[in-house]
């Protein structure tokens, strides 16, 4: 066997050697024959005869010594490469569309793999669970009070451990000063066991120790790998250094590994720079619902079992501590929590690429059919020379596989570029996007796709190749021979399926685009354009309420005096970001247990409503007279006014607080959670009257461009805030953009696929029609000679095209409707059977089909009938 393999690879020298051996043989035999009395020519001829011919002897020799099967595969490959090179245009086109198709599907596969298939990037991630408080939207609904967490941690038997992070961290909450430019960083407070539970070890230094996790313990931070690289030049001696954060000294406990990205898993689109210990104590218990909980299930315990246990424990906790907030407890696998929201979108994309690949296959199948038809004679000649039907089919399959493999190579390049682009997308709230890459699995997927594609689009033509009767093929010239009925049928079916698939994609993309437009059209309740926000929290030197109020008064006064600033205000929670709810009811109303209303809270400074463009419907805005000593006041939104004071004028009424607050104004609703949903009850509390806020965002509405605004505002605040970080000016539009980013992501990809599908389908139609017109050149010539006008002919051909397209679209419409229902949760403001979309897409397809049919029709009808007849 080894010798055979060697022989296989040393074909040329071995061939030469055998040539020499044969030459000697023939010379010797010839001499013998001459000696026996033959004339020299005859002697040589006889020698050859006896040998059984030189070529067969060589062939036999080669077969015996090498690996005949492999030989013939190589032969097929060489032959395929030769024929493909001869038809460069066809080959380039085929490779291009296979490449695009495989590139797209592999990229989407990588997304599916990262988001839905691969385990989360944690140790034994399958056992990690997410424990939400309730099913209510908003962070306050998802999070749990510290007391409940501690009790659950001690008393449960389902988890090896549970850990938590503080869910109300804010973007840019931590201000880093000293050594270099001041900078606002995002810090996430976590429980001491959070990283050990996930199985994450700091690459440098250590995790937080017990002392650091105590209330008022020594202050420590863990740096994210990104911050360590960017801000500290990957300084290996960073551990133990003191940093000034919010003007307090923190010790660097360690640096997290580059592979750990909190944002990518828990807060998509967010860069987290620092981690701080979050004390689980009486003090933090008083903060209310704060913790997002992650648990590690014991081996063999399911999320459902853990859920059942928590449902038993939770009422006991509540019974024992009546002062605590409600706790229900919903357990689900962490992976479901992380990718749950984007799941439908990703699956729709996966379905879309399958459809795209089917169109690619149909298209190539069609092209190859046309080629095999025109190669009928070549095939017949080969058959006549002794090639078996299987051998020919194998040859054709080799060709299609070679094509698809070349396409896959292109696809691989595209997939690598595509995944790299996706993983570097910033500020897109899709989880795990960072982990999207073309890895070994994706590579395997590409190889499988290439083989499957090659087989799918190659098998039809390969089968067809044998179907033609040899005799007929050899006999028939191009003259008047119309295609065999079956081949015609196959080609028609392929076009129909292409149109149907394209229709599905177009309608799906159309519905999503319309949803997207609807979402972008939504009345946000505020005007993001030409407004920007910047954090201006007062430093720790401002301690008392009057000092703080004085600081804000001065800051606002200065900013408002900047030329070009139209309005300015302050809030502790910008829309589409952090949110919290408080229970609040109308004064004097008894609510049923569990029916007590809650509302989203925003603590604001006077002028905020104006700066945001939130319309005042009734009453007045806060002003400088709403001091701590004045009447406690509140502004509520229209929904809350309707819910708490149905049928009454809310202004002047009181809501339950300690002490009760008087409603002084009613404002329009704001899309606070997401663009797609109203947020229900919302209330605004004057910052002057409360200390219950954790951050202060200055919102500035201005006619200046954001860059100029940043400089002038910083200048205006210089004496108040000498180290106002420069990295922090956020146009409000970016908040909106980030909120719609997952939707935009899905829409853009799907629209791209749909365009690709439309192009392929139109090329498919064009190819089939021009082929059939070419085949019928004579028939057309005769018709024209008999007096048919060009217009009549064109109509005939276009009608034939539209007939095919109509069948395809009817099938496609049904498919689209099914698809649209499957992606119902992605639709917004349109129904799955949205008539506008369906009609528009059918019209578009019809138009494209008509053009694809008209072009070849026009060419045919312009041909000189005499030429067409004579060429026969």
């Amino acid at each position: 066997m080894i010798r055979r393999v060697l022989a296989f690879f040393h074909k040329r020298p071995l061939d030469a050697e055998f040539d020499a051996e044969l030459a000697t043989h023939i010379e010797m035999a010839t001499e013998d024959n001459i000696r026996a009395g033959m004339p020299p020519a005859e002697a040589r001829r006889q020698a050859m005869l006896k040998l059984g011919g030189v070529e067969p002897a060589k062939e036999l020799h080669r077969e015996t010594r090498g690996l005949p099967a492999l030989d013939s595969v190589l032969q097929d490959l060489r032959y395929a490469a030769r024929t493909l090179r001869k038809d460069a245009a066809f080959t380039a086109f085929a490779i291009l569309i296979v490449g695009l198709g495989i590139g797209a599907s592999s990229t989407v596969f990588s997304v599916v793999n990262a988001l839905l298939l691969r385990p989360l990037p944690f140790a034994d991630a399958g056992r990690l669970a997410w424990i939400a408080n309730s099913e209510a939207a908003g962070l306050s609904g998802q999070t749990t009070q510290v007391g409940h967490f501690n009790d659950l941690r001690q008393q449960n038997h389902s988890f090896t451990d549970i850990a938590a992070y503080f869910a109300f961290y804010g973007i840019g909450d931590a201000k880093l000063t000293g050594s270099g430019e001041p900078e606002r960083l995002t810090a996430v407070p976590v429980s001491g066991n959070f990283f050990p539970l996930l199985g994450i070890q700091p690459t440098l230094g250590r995790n937080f120790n017990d002392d650091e996790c105590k209330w008022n313990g020594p202050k420590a931070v863990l740096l994210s790998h990104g911050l360590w690289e960017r801000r500290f030049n990957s300084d290996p001696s960073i551990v133990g250094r003191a940093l000034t954060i919010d003007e307090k000294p923190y010790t660097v406990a360690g640096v997290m590994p580059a592979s750990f990205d909190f944002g990518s898993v828990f807060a998509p689109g967010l860069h987290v720079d620092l981690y701080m210990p979050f004390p689980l104590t009486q003090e933090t218990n008083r903060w209310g619902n704060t913790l997002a909980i992650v648990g590690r299930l014991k081996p063999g315990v399911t999320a459902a079992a853990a859920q059942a246990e928590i449902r038993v424990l939770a009422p006991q906790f509540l019974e024992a501590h009546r002062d605590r907030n409600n706790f229900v407890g919903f357990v689900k696998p962490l992976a479901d929590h992380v990718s749950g929201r984007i799941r439908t979108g990703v699956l729709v994309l996966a379905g879309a690429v399958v459809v795209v690949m089917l169109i690619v296959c149909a298209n190539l199948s069609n092209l190859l059919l046309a080629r095999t038809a025109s190669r009928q004679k070549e095939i017949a000649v080969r058959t006549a020379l002794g090639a078996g039907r299987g051998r020919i089919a194998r040859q054709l399959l080799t060709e299609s596989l070679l094509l698809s493999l070349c396409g896959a190579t292109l696809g691989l390049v595209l997939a690598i570029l595509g995944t790299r682009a996706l993983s570097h997308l910033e500020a897109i709230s899709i989880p795990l996007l960072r982990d999207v890459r073309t890895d070994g699995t994706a590579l395997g997927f590409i190889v499988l796709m290439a083989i499957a594609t090659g087989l799918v689009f190659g098998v039809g033509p390969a089968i067809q190749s044998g179907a033609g009767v040899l005799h007929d093929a050899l006999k028939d010239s191009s003259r008047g021979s119309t295609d065999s009925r079956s081949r015609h049928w196959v080609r028609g079916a392929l076009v129909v399926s292409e149109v149907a698939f394209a229709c599905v994609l177009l309608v799906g993309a159309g519905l999503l685009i319309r949803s997207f437009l609807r979402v972008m059209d939504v009345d946000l309740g505020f005007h993001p354009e030409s407004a920007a926000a910047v954090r201006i929290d007062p430093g720790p030197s401002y301690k008392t309420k009057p000092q703080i109020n004085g600081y804000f008064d001065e800051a606002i006064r200065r900013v408002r005096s900047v030329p070009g600033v139209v309005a300015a205000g302050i809030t502790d929670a910008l829309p589409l970001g952090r949110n919290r709810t408080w229970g609040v009811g109308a004064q004097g109303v008894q609510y049923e247990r569990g029916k007590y209303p809650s509302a989203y809270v925003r603590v604001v400074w006077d002028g905020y409503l104006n700066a945001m463009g939130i319309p005042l419907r009734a009453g007045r805005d806060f002003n400088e007279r709403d001091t701590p000593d004045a009447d406690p006041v509140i502004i509520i939104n229209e929904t809350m006014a309707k819910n708490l004071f149905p049928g009454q004028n809310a202004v002047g009424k009181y809501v339950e607080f300690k002490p009760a607050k008087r409603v002084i104004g009613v404002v329009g609703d704001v899309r606070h959670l997401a663009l797609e949903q109203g947020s229900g009850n919302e209330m605004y509390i004057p910052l002057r009257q409360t200390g219950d806020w954790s951050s202060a965002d200055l919102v500035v509405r201005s006619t200046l461009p954001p860059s100029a605004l940043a400089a002038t505002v910083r200048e205006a605040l210089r004496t108040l805030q000498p180290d106002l970080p420069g990295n922090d000016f956020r146009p409000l539009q970016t908040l909106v953009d980030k909120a719609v980013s997952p939707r935009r992501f899905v829409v853009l990809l799907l629209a791209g696929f749909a365009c690709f599908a439309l192009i392929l389908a139109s090329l498919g139609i064009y190819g089939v029609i021009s082929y059939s017109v070419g085949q019928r050149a004579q028939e057309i010539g005769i018709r024209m000679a008999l007096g048919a006008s060009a217009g009549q002919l064109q109509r005939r051909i276009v009608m034939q095209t539209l007939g095919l397209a109509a069948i395809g679209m009817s099938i496609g419409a049904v498919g689209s409707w099914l698809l649209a229902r499957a992606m119902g949760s992605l639709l917004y403001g349109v129904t799955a059977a949205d008539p506008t979309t369906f009609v528009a897409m059918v019209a578009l397809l019809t138009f494209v089909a008509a053009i694809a049919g008209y072009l070849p029709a026009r060419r045919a009808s312009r041909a000189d009938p005499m030429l067409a007849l004579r060429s026969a």
Partner: protein
Amino acid sequence: MWQNHMKLDLLQGTLDVMVLQTLAAMGAMHGYGIARRIEQVSGDQVLLNQGTIYASLVRLQNRGWIDAEWGASDNNRKAKYYSITRAGRKELASEADQWNRLSDVMARMFAQ
């Protein structure tokens, strides 16, 4: 493997044994010589397609039963000389034994 347009149908594998026996009896020989020798010994009863000799030689060589070496022929032509190896002799012995037994059996069958 090869087509027989010969007076006697060669059974599969027969040619290999003939080549081995020829080499064992005659010593090193080139391909043409082997072919001629087989034709002579058979009294021209088998009309050999000489091309098949070379396939047989490759086969035997692959199995390690014969060796090949380039040399010069009687009238100074470059030719490839084949010779039987030790393993080849062993193989030939066992083949010969088999053939003898088979032909005995055949003879007895026809004698009854």
